[in-house]
């Protein structure tokens, strides 16, 4: 049986943030995951708090009242300072990461207002620099937004986006350009196929020539689907800005999300450099306990069950969509890895859903409740395990799709879990944990 200082379960943003932070501090870290996490499906922005429930302009100012009204919300365990610390940490990881000078910008102080692929303004606190030029807070700022799309890219429709932006009532005029360029040697081109093409200067040159031929106003800015490079995104983005002589910005697309893949690649490579290990197709199905502590995880690998010893476990397996939580047809909920208590599931006979899509659905906040140390709690509010910390979408108490808080929660609770493990390890006499000292 192997033994690690920390086993992180899950390889989405929460799990990777925890794993990288711990490994870089010197801990022996093993990441176990069923497969690749949700980074590939996310827009690559870190939305901290977009709606509370009105649109939030300054998350730092809105957070206090927001949390006071929601005592069970996981941000209560992190706090504004914890979120700031996590954002600053990620900003540094990206700026010094494998895709540098590709960078993130933004803070808790103000939300940018970025257009989505269907032309709706979306508040977001911390975003790739390649997207920041889309900020709509000052309206059109003199010129048009020119939305460029590609006929072969089925997941992004420039006319739809331009039309909706023009009707959004924020004083932006927009028009669309659709190009017939298809990356060479591609049959069915998705976002990644285009991103690989944009890594090649010759392809960018063709794009620049065709967009310029349609005529750009002096003050126009140019929106592209977020496919501007995967190996060299900074080079692709600056290359287009230079070639067109205009501000260029990316707009997140449907999955597969290229900005999400970039974020995954940066964190995965940072983990590798720090000596952390990732094992895929390793499904945690239970734990061996010694009193209130987990001593080893039971892991299904292929047709076998293995044991993986750990001093600490950070559980970041996601929510219902990722299989971290499961709900059966009789409304019995379970946390799939360790069988932790799930709170917030409406009882039989109680209302579960409301009629409107964006209504306050009673099931929406279901998840694993934790204390301030992110330790899972039972229904009486007592910790059930001492050395297990829960992070990310598994946590109870949030409605990330309504609040626009999902990536912010994953990043900040994942980072916080790592900080808690490191803090506990510096005071423990445990020989394994000693390695985890900063």
């Amino acid at each position, binding site marked *: 049986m192997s033994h690690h200082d920390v086993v992180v379960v899950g390889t989405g943003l929460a799990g990777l943030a925890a794993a990288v932070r711990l490994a870089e501090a010197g801990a022996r870290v093993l990441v176990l995951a069923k*497969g*690749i996490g949700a980074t590939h499906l996310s827009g690559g922005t870190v939305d901290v708090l977009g709606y509370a429930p009105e649109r939030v302009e300054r998350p730092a100012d809105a957070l206090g009242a927001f949390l006071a009204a929601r005592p069970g919300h996981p941000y209560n365990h992190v706090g504004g300072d914890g979120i700031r610390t996590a954002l600053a940490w990620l900003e540094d990881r990206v700026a010094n990461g494998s895709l540098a000078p590709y960078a993130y910008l933004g803070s808790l102080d103000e939300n940018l207002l970025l257009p989505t692929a269907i032309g709706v303004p979306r508040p977001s606190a911390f975003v790739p620099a390649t997207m920041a030029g889309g900020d709509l807070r000052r309206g059109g700022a003199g010129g048009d937004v020119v939305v460029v799309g590609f006929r072969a890219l089925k997941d992004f429709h420039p006319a739809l986006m331009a039309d909706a932006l023009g009707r959004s009532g924020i004083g932006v005029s927009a028009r669309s350009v659709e190009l017939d360029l298809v990356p060479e040697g591609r*049959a069915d081109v*998705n976002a990644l196929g285009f991103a690989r093409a944009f890594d090649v200067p010759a392809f960018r040159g063709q794009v620049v020539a065709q967009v310029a031929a349609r005529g750009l106003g002096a003050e126009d800015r140019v929106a592209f689907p977020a496919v501007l490079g995967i190996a060299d995104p900074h080079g692709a983005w600056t290359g287009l800005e230079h070639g067109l002589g205009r501000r260029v910005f990316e707009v997140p697309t449907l*999955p*597969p999300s290229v900005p999400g893949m970039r974020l995954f690649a940066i964190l995965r490579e940072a983990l590798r450099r720090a000596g952390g*290990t990732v094992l895929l*197709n390793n499904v945690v199905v239970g734990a061996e306990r010694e009193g209130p502590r987990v001593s080893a995880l039971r892991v299904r690998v292929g047709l076998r069950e293995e044991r993986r010893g750990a001093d600490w476990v950070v559980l970041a397996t996601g929510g219902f969509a990722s299989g971290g939580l499961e709900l059966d047809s009789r409304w019995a909920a379970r946390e799939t890895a360790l069988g932790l208590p799930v709170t917030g599931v409406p009882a039989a006979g109680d209302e579960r859903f409301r009629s409107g899509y964006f209504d306050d659905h009673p099931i929406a906040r279901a998840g694993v409740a934790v204390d301030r140390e992110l330790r899972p709690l039972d229904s009486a509010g007592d910790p059930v395990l001492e050395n297990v910390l829960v992070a990310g979408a598994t946590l109870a108490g949030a409605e990330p799709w309504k609040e626009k808080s999902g990536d912010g929660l994953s990043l900040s609770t994942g980072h916080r879990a790592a900080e808690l493990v490191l803090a506990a390890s510096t005071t423990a006499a445990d020989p394994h944990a000693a390695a985890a000292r900063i």
Partner: protein
Amino acid sequence: MAAHDGDVLGTLLMRESLDHCVKCTICETFCPVSNVTPLFPGPKYVGPQAERFRVGDEPSADASLDYCSGCGICTQVCPQGVHIAEINTQARAHLKATNGVPLRDRILARPTLAGRLGTPVAPVANWTLRNRALRRLAEQTIGIHHRAPMPRFAGRTFQRWARRHTALASERRVAFFHGCGTNYYEPRLGEMTVALLEHSGIGVDVPKQDCCGLPLQSNGLFDDARAYVHRLAERLAPHARAGVDIVGTSTSCTLMLKREALEILELGDDPALRAVSERVFDICEYLLALHERGELNTDFQPLAETVTYHAPCQQQGHGIGKPAMELMALIPELEVIESDATCCGVAGTYGLKREKYDIAMDVGAGLFRQVADNGSDRAVCDSETCRWQIEHATGVKTVHPVEMLHRASGLA
């Protein structure tokens, strides 16, 4: 170590797993083949999607399926547990049963036959395989690409060496599943493995054995593959049932015994195979577990050199990470540069075929560039066909991790 609860082969049945596909497209972003050729539209398209249109004995609508190399990376990355590669392998067998299996694939799928025929006449066979005119002829007649990396016959077999070798008398024993590659082409690797295990006080038994059937499975010849793997399992099962672990140096063949034959060939009812499956280990997986128990002799001498390590995709299919990296880290002064490439392209016999050779070379281009750029005079890789492909593409001598450990143990 234990087999997971008996329901694994039931609830996770290959085809049924496709109902878990949420079309997230993560598999397509990792597929090394669809990234370099439009001939293969990607694992999601030909796997969970097209599978819904394959009904009973109706002809398969998508011949593009044959361009899947079977590397298995799609299954590894799937967040929903869909057995994409396994579904595709089963569907490919169905496609080939309908359209017919070319003579070329029948030959490539039988390494034992080639080994038996080639070994006694190794000089002639090796000359033939390296004669350009004959290779051109072979490409035109049966479709094996004239530049494809064919291994050299050693002219002797590992089995013959093992019969003459006096096994170490020890309470601690393993059975060695050496596979066809070690037997006919790299017998020295088998000898080094035995020496390395004995160096840690482990006696090695070498049962009589034959091919595991993996190349037959990959080429869609499922009935023959079942016969081969069953015969092999019968030979290895007495060791497993006696509580002896089985180790193998051919990482794709140990995966076949551990998991793939049960899943893809649906041999869950074969008691011999079930017994073997629970006891078989990739050699580096086994050595690392020995080390974790404090039973590996790690009295290594320094090796002051730099090597590039590539973890083959089928080794990654074990779900064991990169044990070779952890083992080589125990060797003083050895600098190991880890490749971040996913696949060398050859995928067993895929890259040997006329219509797929260029695709395989394009798939491996990133790896070949890293091996060349690192400037090391050696590369390390756990899989034999991958080693031959890397050597072919880069000219850099490529060895099994066991060879590094063997040298560091002062056994060379």
